[in-house]
């Protein structure tokens, strides 16, 4: 078994990684905003808002991302709405991520002690102030571990948009592989690149989590 690698691949794959990171950043950000709104809607909203939020997360979490990508890329043009491949990819990834982020935010919101919100109300805070100053800051701290998993999952699943010709890392790997007939070598490099970024992100997020950890929590009272 002789392996053939080429340095020429690296700039091409590097540019692909930049597109992958771009997709991930945009999708996680849009997903964050929609996700937190869905979660607040699900916990504090009235009945119609709650039903809508639950329906959204159920639909997007219950169907494969690939189907969602195809609905945006093939589905919408078939009913006369033209979407570029990059936009279709970004939309599908963002809306999909929003559903997962909403679930994590909801769990964290519900884990904030209700008594603390009552204490804030007893000080004269409005419901909105209670959410802003008591619930959200704790929610954001608690959600970091599951949110990190979602970021990493999104980064990996962004590779699916190669199928609609978004020129990210996977797409470029496939092009090189089909030109050089060196699938194994090319995809080992691609795999290492993904793995490296994944490990880098998990470590950064673990550091953030440690930094914002509330002293004393989870340990025995220090008196």
């Amino acid at each position: 078994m002789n392996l053939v690698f080429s340095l020429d691949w690296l700039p091409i794959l590097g540019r692909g990684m930049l597109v992958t990171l771009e997709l991930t950043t945009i999708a996680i950000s849009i997903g964050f905003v929609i996700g937190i709104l869905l979660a607040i809607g699900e916990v504090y909203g009235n009945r119609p808002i709650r039903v809508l939020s639950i329906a959204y997360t159920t639909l997007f979490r219950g169907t494969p991302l690939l189907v969602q990508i195809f609905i945006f890329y093939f589905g919408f043009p078939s009913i006369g709405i033209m979407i570029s491949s990059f936009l279709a990819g970004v939309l599908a990834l963002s809306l999909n991520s929003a559903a997962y982020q909403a679930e994590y935010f909801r769990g964290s919101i519900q884990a904030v002690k209700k008594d603390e919100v009552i204490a804030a109300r007893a000080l004269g805070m409005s419901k909105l102030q209670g959410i802003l100053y008591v619930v959200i800051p704790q929610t954001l701290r608690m959600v970091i571990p599951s949110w990190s998993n979602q970021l990493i999952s999104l980064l990996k699943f962004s590779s699916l948009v190669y199928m609609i010709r978004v020129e990210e890392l996977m797409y470029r790997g496939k092009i090189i592989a089909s030109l050089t007939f060196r699938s194994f070598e090319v995809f080992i490099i691609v795999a290492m690149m993904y793995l490296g970024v994944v490990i880098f992100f998990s470590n950064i997020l673990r550091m953030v989590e440690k930094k914002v950890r509330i002293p004393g929590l989870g340990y025995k009272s220090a008196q």
Partner: protein
Amino acid sequence: MDKLIIIVNGIPLLLEGLIVTLELGAAFIALGLALGLAIAFAQVYGNRFITIFCAGFVQVFLGIPAMVLLFLFYFGLGEFGFNISAFAASVIAMGLRSAAYQSQVFRGAIQSIRSGQITAVKALGMNLFQRIRYVVLPQALRYSFAPWSNEYAAQIKDTSLCYAIGVTEIMREGRYIVVQTFGNAMLIYIIIAFIYLGITYFGIWLLRYWEIKLRVPGFGIN
């Protein structure tokens, strides 16, 4: 009604695809379950060398996108003359990946069993195998239900990725219908979406039912 005819004509194709999808899902989950449990126990009870090896395996399979794994196992191995079918390559790649995920679920569950119980049965004279069989496993599996049902849902949905290497599962059949009928992509993919939605939530519901049936009073409190 054109649309209705397209749907009716498409049903046999979609059903064929659905069967392949379910076969893939069952294979991923079964391989992942067997190997995942083994890795979990190895990580908890194994020596240093085994623990490090398992951790490496898990890190690699969790850190690489499923799509890249599929390509490596199908096209990559094909380069060296291992000509396995797309279905077999899918099962190996995704089964190993699922094992990595499932091992995390089971490891967490095993570690959440209170050590006092293990000490207690050690005092009764049980050996390692007996301790695992009669104390650890029955509790660990119960703890695992909720995260495991997430894993089930993820595996079912991820079978769609095998479309990329040419397995004729439900997405591939759907694509055929779209191409043959010149359009109707929206209609077909929405139908497929609802089929996935159905099997995903049916499975979750079934697992939930089973979990409640097997529930031990007071379990999970504290």
